[in-house]
């Protein structure tokens, strides 16, 4: 077996893992064969895309009508960065997919590993007018003056709360993160992420309040993440947190079962709790929001295939009006070209309530993205430090 070396001369993880797994490969034969079949099946006129489940629409008929292509979408839990890297680097997802969607930020390491094809943005008519704050946001931009991935959509996250029970105003009246992290009123009745994002939130809070010198809360140094963890441990020991969650279902269950009064969660969890008849709101905050984005790139293997023009057609469609409009209504997320989304909805005589949802997303950009310092990407440089501090926080 030849040993592949990465740019900085280290043996790539893929080579080592492959070597270590050679014995186990005998047992994996069926999936390898299946992979071969999938690869062989690469048909012209079909776009094969891997991405987070929230990327997918309920049906792709508009995509098919407007591009003349078929969509073959494979959902993947992209928030699990380790699993995603494994899929791309070890299982060579690029051999099987034309487009790969990730939480923006994750792709930077993949760019360094040579797994991402550079974008020729001249081939995308909808790209140029995306605002620079999005295109050059710290999670998307690799800092080398090149374009590697397109922004699909983004959101500003906060927490859900029971306004009536807490005697608090509803959005757009703004609250702050003390309610979740540092409040006698909600002691023992708040919940938050059971992963690295918990430490990032701690870092954001300390940075925002000027309590610690922290550069980028999403990409802290080992000593910064230690400071953030100390703060979170202090709050945990004060009995602030009822639980740490790992999945979307737990977020919903914590609201429904009355375990929490305030919970750091995803916006769709509040939508679902509301649909179950609960009086929950998703907070607008005056101190900060957690900004995140989903981005999509062309794997380097796909760039060598002969359907590259079709891939660009598909990307341009994702940046167009019909996807932005449909997604805003379906998930409440903001597409990178909401102007086209609004135009699409009015051109096609969409009902007023749907147009209102699209307009609400445009307003959200102005209200919630006013403090642009708090973007999170999926992969901090010192992942090991985050993990060690997270283990300490969980154990405290």
């Amino acid at each position, binding site marked *: 077996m030849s040993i592949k070396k990465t740019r900085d001369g280290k043996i790539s993880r893929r080579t080592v893992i492959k070597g270590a797994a050679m014995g186990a490969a005998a*047992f994996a034969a069926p999936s390898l064969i299946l992979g071969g079949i999938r690869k062989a099946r690469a048909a012209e006129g079909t776009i094969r895309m891997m991405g987070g489940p929230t990327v997918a629409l309920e049906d792709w008929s508009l995509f098919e009508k407007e591009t003349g292509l078929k969509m073959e979408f494979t959902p993947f839990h992209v928030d699990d*960065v380790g699993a995603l890297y494994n899929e791309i*680097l070890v299982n060579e997802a690029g051999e099987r997919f034309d487009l790969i969607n990730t939480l923006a930020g994750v792709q930077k*390491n993949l760019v360094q590993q040579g797994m991402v094809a550079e974008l020729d943005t001249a081939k995308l008519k909808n790209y140029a007018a995306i605002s620079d704050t999005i295109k050059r946001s710290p999670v998307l931009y690799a800092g080398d003056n090149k374009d590697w991935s397109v922004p699909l959509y983004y959101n500003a996250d906060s927490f859900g709360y029971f306004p009536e029970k807490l005697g608090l105003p509803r959005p757009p009246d703004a609250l702050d993160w003390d309610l979740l992290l540092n409040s006698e009123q909600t002691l023992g009745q708040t919940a938050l992420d059971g992963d690295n994002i918990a430490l990032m939130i701690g870092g954001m809070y300390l940075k925002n309040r000027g309590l610690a010198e922290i550069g980028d809360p999403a990409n802290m140094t080992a000593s910064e993440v230690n400071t953030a963890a100390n703060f979170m441990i202090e709050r945990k020991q004060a009995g602030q947190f009822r639980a740490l*969650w790992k999945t979307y279902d737990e977020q919903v269950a914590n609201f429904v079962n009355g375990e929490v009064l305030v919970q750091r969660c995803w916006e769709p969890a509040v939508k679902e709790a509301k649909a179950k008849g609960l009086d929950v709101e998703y907070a607008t905050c005056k101190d900060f929001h957690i900004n995140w984005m989903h981005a999509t790139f062309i794997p380097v293997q796909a760039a060598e295939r002969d359907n590259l023009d079709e891939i660009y057609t598909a990307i341009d469609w994702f940046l167009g009006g019909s996807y932005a409009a449909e997604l805003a209504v379906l998930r409440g997320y903001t597409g990178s070209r909401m102007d086209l989304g609004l135009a699409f909805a009015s051109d096609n005589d969409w009902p007023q309530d749907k147009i209102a949802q699209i307009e609400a997303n445009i307003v959200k950009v102005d209200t919630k993205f006013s403090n642009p310092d708090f973007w999170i990407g999926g992969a901090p440089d010192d992942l*090991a430090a985050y*993990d060690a501090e997270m283990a300490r926080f*969980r*154990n405290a």
Partner: protein
Amino acid sequence: MSAEPIAAGTTAAPRRPRAVSLERAAVAALTVLWVVGVLLPILSLIVISVLQGRGLSFIWTVSFQPYADIFVDYRIETVLRTLRIVAVVTAIEFVLAFPFALWLAKGLREGWTKSILLVFLVVPFFLSPAARTIVWRPILGREGLINTALMSSGITDAPVDWLLFSEFAIHIGLIGPYFPSMVWPIFISVSLIDDELIKASRDLGATAAQTLRHVVLPLAMPGIAAGVIFTAIPMLGDNIASTLLGGGQVSLIAEGFDDLIRAMNFPAAAALGSTLLGVFILTAVLIGLALRRRGGGPDIFAGMKQ
């Protein structure tokens, strides 16, 4: 012990050469499978545990940094906490399972009741572990069945918080799923005890307790040992109860693996795995020594040959 079947096969060789070659082929195939499927992955684990990971790459030099990452106070606490919880739950399982298995094997006549009970013991293996565990949330939660009962009867004024998202909840969540793993081996080994031996013990004037202690328990020992192993070892790696009922408040070893792998810290995950493997081997040796001291060591699995 294990030499007997091979010796029998060898002496039979001149008469039945085909059968022997098949037997040998089967042994060879199983050995290869075992080496490839069990030994190689374990060796890979140990090799990876002494490499250094940096970002997405390994550095190809021997380093004990992964072990240094593991041997820090909060990770050791996690390992010790896991071992303690597993030991306590395994003991609870034994206390619950032994009388039940005894009754099932010897107290209950063959018939519908027995068949139905045995089916109930198999059913849990077909259910999703998460589904079996999540049902405890609406029972143990702040607004759950128990808290509602406690408050409506006036025993407490406020909900009892430690019922859920606590070590207590994890103990409760582990008991159900691992009960059949303890019952089955004990049931089988007790079923194999000849009724005549129990009758003889009674005829010789032994009390029920004496019969239990001097006849049933020693003969059931292979099943008890198997039950403890089948219960304790998988429980060490259980991440369902700790995730769903611990609510991130009780850190156990399985979550530690998940997090290390998620953080792409494969060497440290391998180091944790290797350490745990060491603990398994040490425990097995200690149990073996303890049994030998009691005189039951080498014959512990003798009953399995019947």
